[in-house]
C-alpha cells in the first residue's frame, strides 16, 4: 500500500466518522420518527421532512406530502402557499397525527434550481475529464499532455 492510499484511507475514515456522528447525534426531530412513536413526541417541534411538498391547500392549513414518506395535515396560515410546491417547514407534532404552529416558506423555483444546476455540474465534470486522466499503472490522476 503506497503512502497515497494510506493518506486516502485516513481521510476516508475521518469522513466516515463525521457521517456517523451526524447520523447518531444530529439535533433534528424528523416527521418519520414522530409518526413511528406518536406519544413519545407529542408537542415536539419537527424540523426534518423528506423533500416536503404542499399537497392540497385548505382554509386552515395544508396537506404536507413527503418523498418516500407519509403525508400529514398541517394547520397554519395558508397565505402564499401553493399546491405542488416544495416547502420548508418547522411545526409542532401532535400525537393525534397532525402538525400546528407551523413556520413555512415556499421553496419557489426549487425545481428550476435543480434543473439549471445540472448544467454547471456536467460542464465542470467534463472540463475536469478533459484536463486530467487516471493513470492506471501509477494509480493516480495526472494532467493530460496538453495541460
Amino acid at each position, binding site marked *: 500500500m503506497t503512502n*497515497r492510499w494510506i493518506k486516502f484511507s485516513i*481521510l476516508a475514515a475521518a469522513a466516515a466518522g*463525521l*457521517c456517523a456522528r451526524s447520523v447518531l447525534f444530529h439535533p433534528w426531530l424528523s416527521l418519520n420518527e414522530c409518526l413511528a412513536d406518536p406519544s413519545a413526541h407529542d408537542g415536539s417541534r419537527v424540523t426534518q421532512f423528506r423533500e416536503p411538498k404542499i399537497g392540497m391547500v385548505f382554509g386552515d392549513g395544508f396537506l404536507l406530502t413527503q418523498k418516500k414518506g407519509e403525508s400529514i395535515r398541517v394547520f397554519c396560515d395558508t397565505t402564499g402557499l401553493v399546491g405542488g410546491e416544495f416547502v420548508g417547514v418547522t411545526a409542532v407534532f401532535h400525537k393525534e397525527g397532525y402538525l400546528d404552529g407551523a413556520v413555512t416558506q415556499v421553496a419557489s423555483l426549487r425545481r428550476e434550481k435543480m434543473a439549471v444546476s445540472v448544467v454547471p455540474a456536467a460542464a465542470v465534470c467534463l472540463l475536469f475529464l478533459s484536463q486530467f486522466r487516471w493513470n492506471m499503472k501509477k494509480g*493516480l490522476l495526472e494532467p493530460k499532455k496538453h495541460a
Partner: protein
Amino acid sequence: MPDLVTHAAIAHLIRRPFDLKKKTGTGPSLRVLFYLGTLLPDLLTRPWYILFPATHDFTLPFHTPAGALIACGMIAVLFETTLQKKAFGLLAAGSVLHFVLDGFQKQIIGNNFWLYPFSWKDYGYGIIWAGEIMRYIPCWLALAALMEIGIAVYYRARKQNLRES
C-alpha cells in the same frame, strides 16, 4: 444554497482574472479544480438526498467545512505528488467560496454548520431566499461573458503590441 450556476459563475468571475498572468488567455488550466471545489459540497450531498431522502443525515457532513476539506483532501491525494498541494489549495478555496455564498441564503432551519462536528449552530447571515437568488443568474452569466470578451480583447491587444515591438 444558491443554485450551481450562481456558484460556478461567481467562482469563474473571481478566478478567471488570475489567468491574465499567463502568456495566452486560452488553453487548459488547473482552475477547473477551483470550480470543482466550489461545486463539491453540493455535488456530494444534494443529488443523494434529493433522490434518496433517507440519506440526508449521512451526507450532510460533506456540506460542512470539515467534511468538504476532507473530501478535497481525498481528491487531492489522488493527484501526482507535485500537484497535491496545489490541487488541495484550489479545491479548498473553491469550497470556502461555496460556504461564503451559501451564508447569504435564508433558511428555515439553517444549513451553515461551519463548526461541525463541534457545534450545530447555524452561522449563515441569511439575506436572500434561494428562489430570489435564481433571478440573478442572467446577471452572473452576462458578467462572465463580458469578462471573457474583456480578456480576449486584452490578449489581442497584447499580441499586437508584441508584434509591433
